[in-house]
């Protein structure tokens, strides 16, 4: 019952709000000229004080990108993106802040308003929730990374990736682009050329990261693309739980977000990566919103390693992302838990790839899609068992829920098996909220909207329970709010 009451309270509390993160922060910004060419790439690299090898890597990516086309296989439609009419770099003016004291107070106010704790003391004062270290990325730069000292005591490196390029070049050289190659796809090539910031995490051998790590992404500037790059490496026996959140102001024009996330897990390492994606979804008529083209992939390189993706996708006008696992190490484990909710004119095409290479590798896919309004929601996934993956196992459950008869729910799984001792099981269902469930709730006094929120949360339970606690509560609220106006 606690969850029920909580959901109801949430819906009440947020009833008046729609996209509560839609405000804009007025702050002096530096931006490079619009458009993309080699000079812009050089400018970004110079701005970041990058070594020559990094610039070369970017230029190679840029040259490759110029030869590539946008992928066209996803079930999404949008007017052509004018890559020459975007800013590829935007950052608060002035020198980079050395500490929190140097950060523009307007920015601090914004993070406060978003509920992101950048003040370590304030975070420490929190009694109930465990500490979370935060890397805050604002448009093209990281503005603050908290708890770095605490973390460094246990050998954990958590810093902006631009800093890692300078301070930990060997690690970056070894792993950057090793999971998602430069030319993997159009958007990964673009990102590789122009990425401006993001987080870098290295957990050394045998270390269990003492606190949750998180990155909070905020797009603020107009006509600006955000191209962040995240690289997480868990060495032998290490483990880490990483959270990612995203918001952006409400704007009439569409904005591009093309991120790349790479995870590497060595022998016995564990990485848990959770996302609550709440980019501005556009208004009720489908105007504005973020185009979210993201490449996320994890490599289970070591034996018995494990990578677990959990995502709650409620934002963005377009979501195009497939957090995947390459199960190379014997006995390695990949997991994908996803809730994707689309409303109004949102379009989501999301899912995962599980590539079984090593022996006795196992993967689990649980996907819950909810479509409302005029939206389209697609699950797209690949389970591939290679000849060497003896004893591999996959279980996939894909459920879709439709609310209203103007939306679409689509399921496109690909299953390829080339090993007779592997076992693959796949189930998918599509349904609507049953009349008797709704009636039962309403006969107990719930409004139709509350009842839908409740049932949707129940539908997503198997995924939500995978989220760290404070995120799960946030995600539940988000689901209820995102569905507002979908019934009645």
């Amino acid at each position, binding site marked *: 019952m606690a969850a029920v009451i909580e959901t109801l309270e949430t819906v009440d509390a947020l009833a008046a709000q729609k996209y509560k993160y839609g405000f804009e922060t007025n702050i002096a910004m530096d931006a490079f000229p619009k458009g993309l060419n080699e000079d812009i790439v050089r400018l970004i690299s110079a701005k970041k004080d990058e070594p020559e090898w990094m610039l070369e890597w970017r230029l190679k990516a840029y040259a490759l990108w110029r030869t590539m086309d946008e992928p066209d296989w996803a079930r999404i439609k949008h007017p052509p993106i004018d890559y020459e009419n975007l800013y590829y770099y935007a950052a608060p003016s002035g020198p980079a802040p050395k500490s929190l004291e140097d950060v523009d107070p307007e920015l601090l106010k914004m993070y406060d308003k978003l509920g992101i704790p950048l003040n370590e003391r304030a975070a420490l004062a929190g009694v109930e929730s465990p500490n979370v270290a935060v890397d805050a990325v604002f448009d093209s730069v990281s503005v603050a990374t908290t708890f770095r000292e605490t973390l460094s005591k246990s050998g954990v490196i958590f810093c902006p990736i631009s800093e890692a390029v300078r301070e930990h070049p060997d690690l970056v050289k070894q792993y950057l682009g090793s999971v998602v190659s430069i030319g993997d796809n159009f958007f990964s090539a673009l990102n590789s050329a122009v990425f401006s910031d993001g987080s870098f995490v290295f957990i050394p051998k045998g270390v269990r990261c003492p606190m949750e790590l998180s990155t909070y992404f905020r797009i603020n500037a107009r006509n600006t693309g955000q191209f962040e790059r995240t690289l997480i490496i868990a060495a032998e026996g290490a483990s880490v739980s990483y959270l990612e959140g995203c918001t952006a102001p409400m704007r009439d024009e569409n904005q591009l977000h093309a991120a790349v996330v790479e995870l590497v897990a060595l022998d016995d390492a564990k990485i848990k990566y959770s996302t609550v994606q709440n980019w501005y979804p556009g208004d009720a008529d489908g105007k504005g919103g973020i185009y979210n083209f993201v490449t996320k992939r994890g490599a289970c390189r070591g034996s018995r390693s494990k990578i677990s993706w959990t995502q709650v996708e409620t934002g963005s006008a377009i979501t195009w992302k497939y957090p995947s696992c390459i199960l190379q190490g014997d006995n390695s484990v990949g997991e994908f838990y996803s809730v994707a909710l689309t409303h109004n004119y949102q379009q989501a095409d999301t899912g995962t790839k599980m590539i079984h290479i090593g022996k006795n590798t196992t993967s689990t896919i649980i996907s819950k899609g909810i479509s409302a309004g005029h939206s389209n929601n697609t699950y797209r996934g690949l389970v591939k068992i290679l000849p060497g993956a003896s004893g591999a196992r996959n279980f996939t459950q894909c459920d879709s829920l439709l*609310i209203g008869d*103007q939306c*679409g729910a689509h*399921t496109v799984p*690909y*299953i390829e098996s080339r090993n*007779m*001792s592997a076992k693959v*099981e796949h189930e998918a269902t599509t349904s609507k909220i049953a009349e008797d469930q709704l009636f039962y709730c309403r006969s107990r006094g719930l409004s139709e909207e509350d009842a839908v929120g409740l049932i949707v949360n129940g539908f997503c339970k198997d995924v939500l329970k995978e989220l760290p606690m404070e995120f799960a509560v946030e995600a539940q609220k988000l689901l209820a709010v995102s569905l507002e106006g979908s019934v009645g």
Partner: protein
Amino acid sequence: MTALPTRKLEAWRYTDLKNLAAISFTEAKPAKIVAPLPDLGIPRIVFVNGSYNAALSTPPEFMSPFVKVVDESVLPLVQINAAHAHDGVTIDVPANIDAGAVLLISYANTEMPIAFHPRHRVVLGAGAKLTIIEVAMGQGVYWHNPVTDITLHEGAALGHYRLQDESTEAFHLATIRAQISATAAYESFSLVIGAKLSRAEFHATLTGPNASTHLNAAQLLRGRQHADFTSVVAHKAPTCASRQTVKSVLSDHSRGVFQGRIEVAQIAQKTDGYQMNQALLLSPHAEIDIKPELEIFADDVKCSHGATIGALDPEQIFYLRSRGIPEDQARSILIRAFLTEALEPVTHEAARIFLEDAIETWWARK
């Protein structure tokens, strides 16, 4: 000639026709019949090397000669068929007539590679009934590219049972398009044991309320055979039901493909759609590729698909052997049991016996 589809097309990602494209075909010559043709004691229509053979046929009522038609299909194989079709059979059963069963045989025997593109049409008037048992068989290198167009008017019922037992050097690419009106039923089952490379592509459209269809299949492959079962079921009216159970048994270096899409239009409320695809891999070199798709634009629907892939269960094999049943027979029993569900729509007794015999023959051939 329209080019053959390539793997760049999403619908052909798992089936590569480059070996077919490399063959140059010659004119078909009259062929010797070296194998006995099946006879089920029902009217029989026989095509030899793609042409109707009156001497071997005992045509059913309601059969009429081939008429060339204009076809604006976007499907490459249908375009090729439309350009080259010179023969085929048309069966037009008037309303409320039970036309019984008919056996339709395509037999090929050739020394040089030949290609034939028959175009068949089956129209059942309101309330009419018909069973078609279709057999494709032959020797030599050839390409059989039949297109079958089926129209079922209100309340009509067609049982369509297919045995594809082509030469293991042959290419068999069949397209079956069915328009199914209100309360009509299209019940089909395909047994695939032949051809070097084959594809059966079904496009079933449910156009009126309470129309229904079964699109079942069993693919039993060995050697380097490749078989592809592709279906698109379009629900375009409310309260229709579609059921697909496709089973693949793959040994040696064979490769099985299943692609199935259920499309539910916004008007098609209360759709009941179901797909089940199961594969048994009997060899470490066999491969299965599955793509079951749901594309849904109506909210009050019940649609699901399931897929399982695995080997024969060693526990079950041991249980049978511990009762004295030799291993080979134990496997055969378990494979037959695995196939049972797919054969469900075959309600015609003679057809069922004929198909079950074909499964036995397949097992005994190895």
